[in-house]
């Protein structure tokens, strides 16, 4: 039988001289109807370019196919070489035979058109449906991706739907004309883990229902275990390993695949949690947070009073010992970043008390607490040299830049693994991982006792992530630092946390030592969160589709939540009692 798609020695280049600037260097694979292939690789590996070449969208990004063939068996049985096809033919194929979903559902939809109009467009173009027929078809498409109350949702604008819902809309659009091949380019990277699990489950079900083939691009090798039949691992434009799911995951041949499988953090349900710290009875905490409340007023119109407020953080309290890591996990909107920012004084808390061992924190200038931000590209001023960047905390603390300061900068740079001549360079001369090391060095300039890491490794490539985590653990042991590690990524949290606090809708719902929380979650939300984490152990596991939404955090003025009831589940593990 001829395969649905057969790619032979595909070469793609970019720029004025595509032959010199080759991004994809000879990739070949076959894909049968109904099969799913996962392309796994880090940024710059050419995985997206490979996929975009299949429907020739790569032409619009300045790319050019310079060699090889892409043979697609069309619905009528003819075989078409996509590399040679003309644009009008390609326009017919895109959407009707090859569907595509992108990474960012929030920007893939036009914000001023209703989602109904946007789904109908596909039916109008490829099926010639109009008016009521198109609307009915769009409703069916939304039903198919399990959007409740589809008829009403058709009239919604994209901003009225959550990210997960929008990705469902994107899938509905891509599937509108029953394509025989669906290309999914990191479709869940921008989404929370529980939403990711829902989307993965949906894609699995749709695949079974329609019998379409799928190419799934991802950087997360754990994610594909549940859905792929074949895996292709890409590095620097080449397919370094190809094979069935079992072969690649169980007997990886290429060193890079082995590296991806071993060095990269995978979630192991608490088995990989750190055990190198235990609390002593009488010790002053490095950071003590008690009853932290952050509310943002919802503004009414000019003449009416405030409508209420967003209860972003509600009565959060914890303590953090020197040398200990407390991870705050939760999804977007759970208030985890707001908590971190309130401790650093970037957000004004409504109520609450913090204390370090130096005493109560009164403002942001406490040198005992420092912060490392998520995006290493945005957290360094591009116009300042590294020596000025590292000098800033010293100057801000009222100090002067002396030879001693320079020596300290050099020592710290060496410690975080950067070359000595880095001081005379500018941020753009460093890679993402190196910049994050710079940020860590900057945070350590004032010898802090607490470092707040706000998604500090989330923006980095998986293998770089592992190295930065290692560095953080080493630094913690060396300087006795206390880390407050804010993250949504359970696999990363498992590697660095001693204790975990789970935040949901602005409140801590479960807190305790990492191994206990991860292996034996008690609160229903923690359970849901942990079961959603992708893992290579969970092959072809079926996820239940769960469309529960986070409750609204907007409360009327003067609202005070009821006192929390806690239940103990061990020496250091407690969860909020549920109604």
């Amino acid at each position: 039988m001829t395969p649905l798609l057969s790619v032979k020695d595909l070469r793609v280049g970019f720029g004025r001289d595509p032959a010199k600037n080759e991004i994809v260097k000879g990739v070949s694979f076959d894909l049968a109807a109904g099969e799913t292939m996962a392309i796994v690789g880090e940024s710059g590996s050419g995985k997206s370019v490979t996929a975009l070449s299949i429907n020739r969208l790569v032409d619009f990004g300045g790319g050019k196919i310079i060699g090889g063939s892409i043979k697609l068996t069309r619905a009528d049985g003819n075989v078409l070489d996509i590399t040679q096809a003309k644009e009008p033919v390609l326009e017919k194929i895109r959407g009707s035979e090859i569907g595509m979903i992108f990474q960012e559902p929030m920007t893939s939809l036009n914000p001023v058109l209703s989602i109904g109009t946007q789904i109908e467009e596909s039916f109008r173009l490829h099926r010639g449906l109009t008016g009521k027929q198109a609307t009915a078809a769009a409703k069916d498409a939304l039903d198919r991706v399990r959007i409740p109350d589809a008829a009403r949702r058709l009239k919604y604008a994209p901003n009225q739907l959550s990210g997960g819902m929008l990705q469902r809309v994107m899938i509905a659009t891509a599937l509108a004309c029953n394509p025989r091949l669906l290309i999914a380019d990191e479709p869940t990277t921008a989404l929370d883990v529980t939403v990711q699990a829902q989307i993965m489950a949906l894609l699995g079900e749709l695949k079974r229902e329609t019998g379409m083939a799928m190419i799934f691009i991802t950087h997360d090798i754990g994610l594909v275990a549940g859905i792929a039949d074949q895996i292709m691992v890409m590095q620097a434009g080449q397919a370094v390993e190809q094979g069935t799911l079992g072969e690649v995951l169980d007997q990886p041949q290429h060193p890079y695949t082995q590296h991806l499988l071993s060095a990269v953090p995978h979630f192991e349900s608490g088995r990989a949690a750190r055990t190198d710290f235990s609390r002593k009875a009488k010790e002053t905490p490095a950071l003590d947070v008690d009853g932290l409340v952050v509310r943002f007023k919802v503004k009414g119109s000019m003449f009416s009073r405030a409508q209420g407020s967003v209860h972003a953080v509600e009565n959060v309290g914890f303590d953090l010992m020197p040398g200990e890591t407390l991870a705050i996990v939760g999804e977007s909107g759970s208030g985890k970043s707001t908590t971190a920012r309130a401790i650093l004084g970037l957000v004004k808390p409504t109520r609450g008390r913090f204390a370090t061992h130096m005493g109560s924190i009164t403002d942001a200038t406490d040198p005992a607490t420092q912060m490392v931000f998520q995006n290493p590209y945005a957290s360094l001023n591009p116009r300042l040299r590294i020596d000025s960047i590292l000098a800033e905390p010293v100057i801000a603390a009222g100090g002067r830049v002396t030879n001693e300061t320079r020596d300290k900068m050099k020592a710290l740079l060496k410690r975080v693994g950067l070359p000595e001549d880095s001081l005379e360079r500018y941020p753009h001369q460093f890679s993402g991982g190196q910049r994050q090391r710079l940020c860590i060095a900057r945070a350590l300039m004032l010898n802090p006792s607490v470092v707040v890491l706000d998604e500090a490794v989330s923006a980095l490539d998986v293998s770089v992530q592992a190295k930065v985590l290692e560095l953080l653990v080493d630094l913690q042991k060396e300087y006795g630092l206390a880390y407050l590690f804010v993250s949504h990524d359970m696999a990363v949290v498992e590697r660095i946390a001693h204790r975990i606090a789970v935040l949901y809708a602005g409140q801590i719902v479960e807190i305790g030592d990492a191994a206990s929380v991860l292996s034996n979650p008690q609160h229903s939300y923690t359970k849901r969160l942990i079961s959603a984490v992708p893992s290579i152990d969970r092959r072809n596991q079926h996820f239940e589709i769960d469309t529960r939404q986070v409750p609204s955090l907007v409360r009327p003025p003067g609202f005070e939540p009821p006192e929390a009831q806690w239940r103990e589940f061990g020496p250091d593990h407690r969860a909020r009692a549920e109604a």
Partner: protein
Amino acid sequence: MCMLRAIFSHPSGRIGGTIVLIYVVVALLGLFDLTPHYPLQQYRIDRLHAPSVVYWMGTDLFGRDVASRLMKGVGQSFLVGVSAVALATIAGTILGLTAAWFGKLWDGLVMRIMDVLLAFPAILLALLIIAIAGPGTWTSVAAIAIVYTPIFTRVVRGPALSIKSREFVDAARTFGSSKSYILTRHLLLNLVAPLTVQVTLALAWSLLTEAGLSFLGLGTQPPASSLGLMLADSRNLMETAPWLLIFPAVAIMISILGFNLLGDALRDILDPKTRSRTA
């Protein structure tokens, strides 16, 4: 030095840069009276003399050397243009930065005043200011500065707002860096690129505005010379002595073309999105 090389390897930068360089040299020569003849010397016998070896651009109705007056005029326009743009840049940057940083009432107040100023055509607003303050070189400097301040305020406020919410500013706050440190090192330093482009373009406009004001008799006052004034004087003699009109007109045109080309080149060079393509 790196910047100069970048300008001269950019096609429109090469032309614009050369014109601006020549313009500045001519302006300085004119300002320090290093002209072929004394600009106010009247050679009565050679009135309305056509361009020749002695009088490169001919003479005017009073027998004054047009080339010398033109150099003096270029110097005068340059002085007015540069001082006006310098004032506008300083005022606009301070207003824009503080508006972006403090926000709320101050932002609203500043930006609404700027909106009102921008609602008038440049020359009309300048006329209004001179009508109140009386004509003269320094009132025209003030008028042009006021007219162009809103543009700088807007050019600064927009990017300043976006830089203000970047993480490195948050990072600076967590160290407890002072307001003035953040405003100068983090905000202003990142605004150098858009400001440089804007200054070059504003120089072109302000030269034109200055010429316009002098043409209407509200800028530089005779007997001092200015390009606009020379144009105004030559109108009635257009047919008998066309050189009186042609040379100052061409001078205005070329100088504005030069500054605009240079501004375009700078925009390409300083914009990170186009930098890779031109470099």
